């Protein structure tokens, strides 16, 4: 893993974004503050303002809908899976519209963190009843009254479903990051390297030719 290689990769030649070009582009430490900023480069095809705007409008709505699916799953079609898939759809949309930097910028946390927290949630829901001598996954129900919502029923299964939700989002994000964003970055990098190599070679060859042609007489006729 040598992500620390110095040769430049001005992948995104945004003026005034020095951290952009110095940091490793595929790192999850990418800046998070921008939101469909000017350095957008879509995953497919040329940049489309319409798509960007639509995305901007849609993403929060999609995320909200996914939470709804998660919460209502116990009584209606939906649940953790569907919710998670919908939520990740939002991120995929962002990636498609804004390219990999958009994807990285908009993440609440690294996919691995989501996966780990999701797993822990699942395990804890499963394992907590053991501590009080109950079987695994024994469900617990809390009912209480909240000022605004009235009677609220909270099931331990909801925690579990939240775990599922997080894991699904984590999966899709890491797959998109790997198969989409990272590969893109790599190809770009490889192209740059190729170019650099070619130019370096060209320069060396030119230098060699210059050196060879320096002693003028009869050099051109020697077989090389």
């Amino acid at each position, binding site marked *: 893993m040598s992500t620390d290689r110095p040769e430049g990769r001005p992948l995104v030649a945004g003026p005034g974004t020095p951290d952009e070009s110095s940091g490793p582009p595929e790192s999850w430490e990418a800046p998070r503050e921008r939101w469909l900023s000017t350095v957008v480069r879509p995953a497919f095809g040329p940049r489309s303002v319409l798509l960007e705007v639509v995305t901007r409008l849609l993403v929060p709505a999609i995320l909200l809908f996914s939470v709804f699916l998660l919460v209502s799953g116990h*009584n209606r079609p939906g649940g953790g899976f569907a919710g998670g898939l919908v939520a990740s759809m939002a991120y995929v949309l962002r990636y498609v519209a804004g390219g990999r930097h958009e994807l990285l910028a908009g993440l609440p946390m690294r996919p691995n963190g989501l996966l780990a927290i999701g797993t822990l949630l699942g395990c804890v829901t499963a394992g907590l009843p053991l501590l009080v001598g109950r079987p695994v996954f024994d469900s617990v129900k809390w009912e209480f009254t909240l000022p605004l919502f009235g009677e609220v029923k909270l099931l331990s299964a909801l925690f579990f479903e939240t775990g599922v939700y997080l894991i699904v989002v984590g999966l899709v994000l890491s*797959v998109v990051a790997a198969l989409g964003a990272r590969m893109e970055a790599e190809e770009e990098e490889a192209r740059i390297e190729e170019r650099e190599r070619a130019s370096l070679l060209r320069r060396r060859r030119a230098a060699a030719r210059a050196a060879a042609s320096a002693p003028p007489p009869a050099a051109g006729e020697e077989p090389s």
Partner: protein
Amino acid sequence: MNAPSLLLVAAVAVLYSSGFYLLLQRSLMRVVFGILILGHAANLSLLVTDTAITLPPLLGGEPGQQLSDPLPHAMALTAIVITFGVTTFLLALAYRVWLDDENDEVPDDLEDRRISRLKEPEDSS
């Protein structure tokens, strides 16, 4: 009694057959497609074990209604998600093979090929 309709049986048969056929190809992507289709086939198999009842297994409707069997749904759902996870991995793998070999094929094992190309055992000790 609760045998599925012949039409569904035929659909399952076609899905399995075409999945197997794609699985047996050399092209990496077709193998992936084969797995996808086989996944569908298996999920459909789970589903059609049910009777022809088409009411979603949601309680709270009119009492006394016969709902479709939820257990196969749950199992198929689990299977769909598992297949999805594993397919993404297979895709990544296929892509990796392609990157390494510049070739959209499932490569043969070299040591096996070397041995089968020999005319006789390598040594007699």
